[in-house]
C-alpha cells in the first residue's frame, strides 16, 4: 500500500516536472548561448534552453533534412537565408510585432530585414556582427595588412585559412575584383573563381594547414606555428589578451562583415519561447555580457555601456572610422553560387 502511495507521488511529481519543463531547442554557433545567460533565461521564464552547436552549412543541412523541424530557433548568417528559403523553405517569416524593436540598432534591423526578404516577408532578426580579416603575429610578420599576405612567399609554411567561401571572396578582393558585385553575374563570378583558385593552388606551399576548427587555429597562432591567418576578429582579440604581439588586423581591402541572425525554422514547436529568447538576448545588459565574453559586437542598441572597457579597446584598436567604412558586408548569396564554390574548394584542396 505504502509503495503504491510513494509511486503515485513520484508519478505526480514526474508529470508536473514534465509539464513545467518547457524547452527551447536552439541551433546556434559556439559561444552564442553563454551558460550564464542560459541560466538567467531559465530563472526568468522557466524555459530550459537545449543548445546544439553548428555552423552555417550544417545548420542549413540539418534544417533541410527535416524540412525545418527539430529546432525552435536557428542562427544563420544573414547572407545565407534567402537562397536557402527560396529553395528549401525551412524558415517561417518573423512576426516583427513580437520583437522589441527599441532594443535593436535601427539601421542593422532594416538592413537584415531587407537582405532576408523572400516574397515580401522577412525571415531574420539581427543578433551580432563581426568580420573576417587577418590575425597577424606582429613580431614574425610585421606589416602584414593585406589578404595578399596569405599568398606571400615570405611566410612560407606559416599561413593558415579555412578552405571555405570567405577565402575565395577575400582573395577576389585581393586580386582586384569585387566579388559581391559579381554575385549577379555567374559567368563573371566563375571567371573570378578560376583566377582565385589558380592563385591559391600556386600559393599552396605558403600554407601550413587549412584550419577547420577555430580553437586549433588559435593554438597554432599561440605556439608560433602560424604567423598570418584569415580568421574572425574576436579570435585575434582573444589572442591579443594573452600575447600583445598577436592582433586582429582589418586588411586594407576591407574586412568582410557578416551579421548573424535569429531565424525561426518552419516547423518550430515553441515559437513563443523563440521570441522570448530573441528579446532576452538583445536586452542591453545581456548583449553587453555576450560582447564582453565573446568579443563580438551585437545588434543591441544600448549594449555599449555594458561592454567591458578592454573589449571596447579591442574594437577601437582594430577598427578606426576608415576601417569601419571599408568593411565589405556580405550580401545575400544567390542560389547556385555555393555549388560552384564547392567545386572550386574541392579542386584547391585536391591539388598538389
Amino acid at each position, binding site marked *: 500500500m505504502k509503495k503504491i502511495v510513494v509511486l503515485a507521488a513520484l508519478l505526480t511529481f514526474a508529470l508536473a516536472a514534465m509539464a513545467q519543463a518547457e524547452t527551447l531547442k536552439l541551433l546556434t554557433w559556439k559561444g552564442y548561448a553563454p551558460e550564464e545567460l542560459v541560466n538567467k533565461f531559465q530563472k526568468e521564464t522557466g524555459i530550459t534552453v537545449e543548445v546544439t552547436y553548428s555552423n552555417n552549412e550544417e545548420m*542549413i543541412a540539418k534544417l533541410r533534412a527535416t524540412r525545418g523541424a527539430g529546432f525552435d530557433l536557428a542562427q544563420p548568417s544573414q547572407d545565407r537565408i534567402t537562397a536557402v528559403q527560396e529553395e528549401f523553405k525551412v524558415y517561417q517569416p518573423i512576426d516583427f510585432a513580437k520583437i522589441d524593436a527599441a532594443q535593436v540598432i535601427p539601421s542593422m534591423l532594416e538592413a537584415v530585414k531587407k537582405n532576408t526578404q523572400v516574397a515580401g516577408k522577412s525571415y531574420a532578426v539581427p543578433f551580432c556582427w563581426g568580420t573576417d580579416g587577418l590575425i597577424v603575429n606582429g613580431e614574425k610578420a610585421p606589416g602584414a595588412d593585406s589578404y595578399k599576405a596569405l599568398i606571400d612567399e615570405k611566410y612560407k609554411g606559416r599561413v593558415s585559412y579555412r578552405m571555405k567561401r570567405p577565402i575565395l571572396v577575400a582573395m577576389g578582393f585581393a586580386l582586384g575584383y569585387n566579388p559581391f558585385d559579381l554575385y549577379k553575374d555567374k559567368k563573371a563570378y566563375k571567371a573570378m573563381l578560376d583566377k582565385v583558385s589558380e592563385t591559391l593552388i600556386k600559393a599552396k606551399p605558403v600554407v601550413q594547414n587549412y584550419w577547420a576548427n577555430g580553437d586549433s587555429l588559435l593554438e597554432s597562432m599561440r605556439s608560433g606555428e602560424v604567423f598570418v591567418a584569415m580568421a574572425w576578429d574576436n579570435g585575434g582579440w582573444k589572442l591579443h589578451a594573452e600575447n600583445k604581439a598577436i592582433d586582429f588586423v582589418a586588411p586594407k581591402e576591407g574586412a568582410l562583415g557578416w551579421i548573424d541572425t535569429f531565424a525561426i525554422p518552419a516547423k518550430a514547436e515553441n515559437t513563443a519561447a523563440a521570441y522570448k529568447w530573441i528579446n532576452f538576448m538583445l536586452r542591453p545588459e545581456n548583449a553587453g555580457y555576450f560582447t564582453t565574453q565573446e568579443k563580438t559586437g551585437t545588434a543591441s542598441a544600448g549594449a555599449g555601456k555594458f561592454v567591458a572597457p578592454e573589449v571596447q579597446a579591442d574594437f577601437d584598436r582594430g577598427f578606426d572610422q576608415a576601417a569601419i567604412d571599408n568593411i565589405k558586408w556580405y550580401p545575400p548569396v544567390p542560389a547556385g553560387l555555393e555549388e560552384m564554390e564547392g567545386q572550386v574548394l574541392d579542386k584547391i584542396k585536391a591539388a598538389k
Partner: protein
Amino acid sequence: MKGSRLAFAIFLAPVAAWLFLLIVLPHVDLLLMSLRGKDELGERVWTLANYMNFFTEPVYWLTFVRTALYAVITTAITFCIAMPVSFYIAKVARPRVQGALMVLLLLPFWVSELVRVYGWMILLRESGVLNFFLMKLGLTQKPVEMLYTDAAMILGLVYTSMLFMVVPLVSVMDSLDDSLIEAAYDLGAGKWTIWRTIIIPHCKPGITSGAIVVFMLTLGNYLTPNLMGGKNSLWFTEQIYNQFIASFNWNQGSAFGFLLLALSSLIIWLGLKLSRQKLGEVAS
C-alpha cells in the same frame, strides 16, 4: 510445426523491420536522389549526370583514386605491423600477458576517435611533444613539421585500424598448431619461409577479413585525414560531406555515396579474386 514457424516469423519481424526501415529505405531514398538533377532550365529531372560528373571531372575521380590508394597502403602497413604483434600475442606471450596485451590494444578505443587524433596532433605538431624532445636531445636544431603530411595521416589511420586487424589475426593464429611451425623449421625452413609458407597461408581467412574491415574503415574515415592530413589531403568522404553540406548538392552527394559503395565493393571483389578466396569462407 506451424506454431514454431509462426514464432520464428514473430521473432524475425522486428529484425526485418529494423533492416528495412534503417538500411533499405534510406538507401532507396539516396539512390533515387542520386538519379535526380536539374537540367539547364533549372527543372528537376531524372538524370545520370551526377554519376557522369564523377568520371568527367578529374578532381572527383582523382580524389577517389587517391583515397583508395591510401586505403590500400594503410591496409598493407597495418597488416605488416599487426602480423608480428598478433603472433606475439597468440604464440609467444603467456596467457596472463596475452590478456593484458589485448587490453592495451583496446585501451585507445575507450576514448573517441577525435580525442585520439588530437593526441597525435599534440605529439606531432611543430611545437609538439616529439619536437620538444628531439630539440632537447639535440637531434634537430629547428623543429620539424611532422603533422599535416601524408605520412602523419597514414600513421593516424594505421593507429585507428590496428585493433581491427589484430583481433581476427590473433584468433586465426590461436588455431595454428605450433607443431606445424616446428615441422617446417625441422624440414629446413628459415624464419621468413615459415612465415611465407605456413603462417600466412594458415592465417589467410583472418588476414582477408581484417583487411576488408581495415580497408572499409579507412576508406570511410573522415576525421583522421581531415585533421592530420593537412592541405593536400582531400579524402573522398570529405568530398561527399562537402557536396551535402557546403554545396547543398544532395543529388551529387548521394551519387558519390553510391559510387563509393560500388567502387569499394569492386576493389574488395578484385582483392578476393586475386587471393583466390570466397567471401563466404572468410566470413565463417
